[in-house]
């Protein structure tokens, strides 16, 4: 049984083996260290000319990757912590995302930017954030997040073969999570349905049950959502279904709307802060599409992510806070 880290690492090995135009660049990614979270381990040994260790220059790392992408290479750039994406924001928003459209489809930018996001490891305010929400809705750029239900390596391969820029957001705690297997372990009671896109979305439900609540989420939050819906069932006999997104942006919510037609209750879960988050956009679109919805967003409280475990736990969404939100929503 594979863990997310292995899935991502082996995908990079596979892609680099099969496509000589794929280059990997980032800070401290050379072996033996192999990258801060080890996702790039082994690559510099096997593909010595195509793994570039860079100075600490987040803006130029993405800028250089943009130039490489414009001129026939397929760069996979790593930004060591997602918190540092703000340093690269200009190159993402004003260059990578814009070149193709503003140049009237004369060019392509097949760029992938991989970055670990998220807290719960006590790294403190500038190394624990979930900043992906800042890049949602940027025209010309996709935002994608792996999870344990899909195949993270395959998702990364799709991102690398995408002709347009993809921001690939990996939650730090996901790296050591096991990939789920159909009909086994955690998934034993569920059926799930996959939507057929390149970056698949899933709905996870109890077969032959009428759900009362739809939970929409992505990434690591799925690990928190699963025990919550089990708890809702066991303690309250409330059936909930989870709509799990790999593609965060552009927003493709058909699978979610199908579920909402049945439940009319939507709860979103994300680890970033509430305002202008992923959930805010999902809720806005759901309410535009479907009448008589009750909605609730679960997100981090309005504080930086504190270092002390006690504070971090209080600030970030927990099974407890998700449970409370779900019950409040169902009682409406």
């Amino acid at each position: 049984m594979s863990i997310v880290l292995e899935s991502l690492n082996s995908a990079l090995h596979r892609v680099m083996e099969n496509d000589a135009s794929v280059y990997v660049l980032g800070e401290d990614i050379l072996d033996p260290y192999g990258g801060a979270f080890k996702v790039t381990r082994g690559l510099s040994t096997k593909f010595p000319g195509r793994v570039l260790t860079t100075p600490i220059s987040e803006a130029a790392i993405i800028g250089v990757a943009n130039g490489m992408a414009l001129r026939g290479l397929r760069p996979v750039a790593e930004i060591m912590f997602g918190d540092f994406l703000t340093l690269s924001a200009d190159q993402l928003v004003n260059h990578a995302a814009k070149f193709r459209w503003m140049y009237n489809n004369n060019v392509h930018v097949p760029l992938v930017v991989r970055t670990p996001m998220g807290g719960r490891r006590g790294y403190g305010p500038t190394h624990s954030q979930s900043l992906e929400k800042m890049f949602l809705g940027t025209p010309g750029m996709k935002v994608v997040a792996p999870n344990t239900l899909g195949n993270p390596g395959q998702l990364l391969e799709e991102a690398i073969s995408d002709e347009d820029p993809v921001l690939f957001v990996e939650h730090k705690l996901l790296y050591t999570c096991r990939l789920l297997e159909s009909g086994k372990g955690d998934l034993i009671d569920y059926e799930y349905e996959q939507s057929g896109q390149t970056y698949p979305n899933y709905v996870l439900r109890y077969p032959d049950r009428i759900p009362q609540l739809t939970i929409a989420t992505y990434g690591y939050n799925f690990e928190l959502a699963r025990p919550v819906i089990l708890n809702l069932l066991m303690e309250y006999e409330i059936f909930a279904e989870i709509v799990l997104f790999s593609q965060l942006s552009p927003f493709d919510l058909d699978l979610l709307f199908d579920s909402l037609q049945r439940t009319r209750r939507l709860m979103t879960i994300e680890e970033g802060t509430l305002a202008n988050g992923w959930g805010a956009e999902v809720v806005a679109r759901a309410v535009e599409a479907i009448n008589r919805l009750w909605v609730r967003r679960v997100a981090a409280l309005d504080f930086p992510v504190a270092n002390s475990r006690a504070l971090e736990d209080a600030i970030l969404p927990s099974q407890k806070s998700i449970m409370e939100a779900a019950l409040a929503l169902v009682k409406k």
Partner: protein
Amino acid sequence: MPLRYNVTVMDNNYALYKTMLLIRRFEERLLVEFSAGNLVGTTHVYIGEEADAAGIFSVSDPNDVVFSNHRCHGHFLAYGGEPYRLAAELMGKSTGLVGGRGGSQHIQWRNFYSNGIQGGIVPVATGMALAEKTRQTGKVTLAFIGDGTLGEGVLYESLNMAALWKLPILIVLEDNRYAQTTPVEKGVAGLMSGRFSAFGIPVWERDTTDVLEVCAIAKEAFHYVRSGVGPGVLILHTYRFSAHSKGDDSRLPEELTRIRTFDPLILHKPRVTAEECSNAEAEVLTIVEDAFKRAEADPYPGLSVKE
């Protein structure tokens, strides 16, 4: 038969004069169209700096990669771009270089690119040079910056990488002494050249608007970078005769009069005959008139929601 403009890449006096004249008359026409209310938005004209573009592109290779900036028209025309397609783009027509989507600052044609973020083009150009090097194409990548660009941090990140990885990038710094309304004395500390030599990057520098002097020094810089040894920088101190864009020029009339003596057309004119001069004037007039007339008649684009 439609008029087609071709730049012959020849290091001769007439061709250089005509290139500079084309840029001058095109940009002057642009300002007229703005004043007449036929063009909206903004633009950054290259008037006064023509020797740089004409000189550089007379010694570059036609296949070299170019990343220009907001003040890109002169570079584009000297590169061999069609005046008509540029005029159409400036007018927002569907026949424009990028279908009206980019306008003055954001154009793309063959290996020519431009964008409107100061400094933002330099890391991109650095990455392009990296790609050209790994693919062994032999192309040099040019990145055009100004004195104002020296304020952007990402420039220095890029210089570091270009030097570390020995990339075939030639950065051309056109110092026209003003970043919008800010003179260099208020914007640039220390030496311009020092910034590049700090990374071990060789600098070719000249204070001139004489196109033959630009040709000579550009030739040296290109030779070095094309050899594959590493990046190089060409600093050309020049003069901007018009405003930064529209209405943003706080210079006094005395200064504007004084710098006109450095007009590259005036400096180069003695090297062509009177007949060549009037021929060039007539041909350029026809080219510019034709470009804007055709562009004026073209349709506007529609928005395809699908993409």
